[in-house]
């Protein structure tokens, strides 16, 4: 896909408690020529921004210090105040245990990007969030992008219970027909 210039009209909100990492992600997005990049570092500011401004995508960490990363996802998906209920959400995290990946999917994230961040993976997730959006589900027990994807064989290293999943394994988990899929 020819992507140069495609992101000029896009806006991305980056949330990471770590100032250095947020700046890193912001720099990569600017090098991708994303039109507007807003960087913030805490849950409360994120909620304020999301209530008054519209974005095309959000990239958020798990927000380990406050443990509010998934609360933020819940706010985006459910709050009547939010202008971004169906916003693609990329969870950018170093917490990549199998159960954590499933929790994030159930919370309604769109994509999961493993830290440390690699530019081509970030670009892939961004393009997927913008141009390959799944049907949006609003049900009693789940609000978010359809968790069902093409059924694909598990191609990553099976490292459950070891030191977290690598990006290929996360992608495989997200491609499996999750048992609780809507």
């Amino acid at each position, binding site marked *: 896909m020819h*992507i140069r210039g495609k992101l000029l009209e896009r806006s991305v909100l980056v949330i990471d408690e770590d100032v250095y990492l947020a700046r890193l992600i912001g720099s990569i997005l600017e090098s991708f020529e994303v039109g507007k990049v807003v960087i913030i570092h805490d849950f409360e500011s994120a909620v304020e921004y999301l209530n008054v401004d519209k974005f095309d995508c959000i990239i958020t960490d798990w927000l380990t210090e406050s443990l509010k990363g998934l609360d933020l996802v819940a706010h985006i998906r459910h709050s009547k105040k939010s202008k971004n209920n169906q916003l693609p959400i990329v969870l950018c995290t170093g917490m990549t*245990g199998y159960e954590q990946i499933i929790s994030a999917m159930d919370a309604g994230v769109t994509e999961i990007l493993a*830290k*440390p961040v690699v*530019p081509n993976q970030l*670009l892939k997730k961004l393009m997927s969030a913008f141009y390959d959006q799944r049907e949006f589900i609003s049900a009693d027990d789940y609000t978010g992008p359809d968790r069902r994807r093409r059924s694909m064989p598990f191609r990553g290293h099976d490292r459950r219970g070891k030191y977290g999943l690598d990006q290929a394994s996360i992608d495989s988990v997200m491609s499996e027909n999750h048992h609780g899929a809507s």
Partner: protein
Amino acid sequence: MLERAERAIQNLAENYEAELTEDLAQLKKHLECAEWTDAQHYAYKIKSAAGTMGWPLISTASNFLVHALTGRDQIPQFEDIILIQFETLDLIHKEGMKGEDPCGVLLVKELFAVLENYGVRAPI
């Protein structure tokens, strides 16, 4: 586009050495004071940034440490384990083992083997 991203990272990486030195100092301080939550914060921070900034072995070793700190209640000889882990991190940094430095790769493999021998199993 990706080349520009790599250049942007290289520009940031030039200043990362100082950041990493400070983060390792903070990590050491919190480990010595048994401030495990704060130590976990710095280990996670190092894991998250070092890999992108040209220190993948530091990132891998920090990941082991994050998991050890998370599952500390289940780990026998926990304080011995984290000492070994920190010394490995420190050595990789002091010896400048960037990228896939062969000695660094062996060191991280050894660390993994030691953790296995200690029966360390990270929580899922």
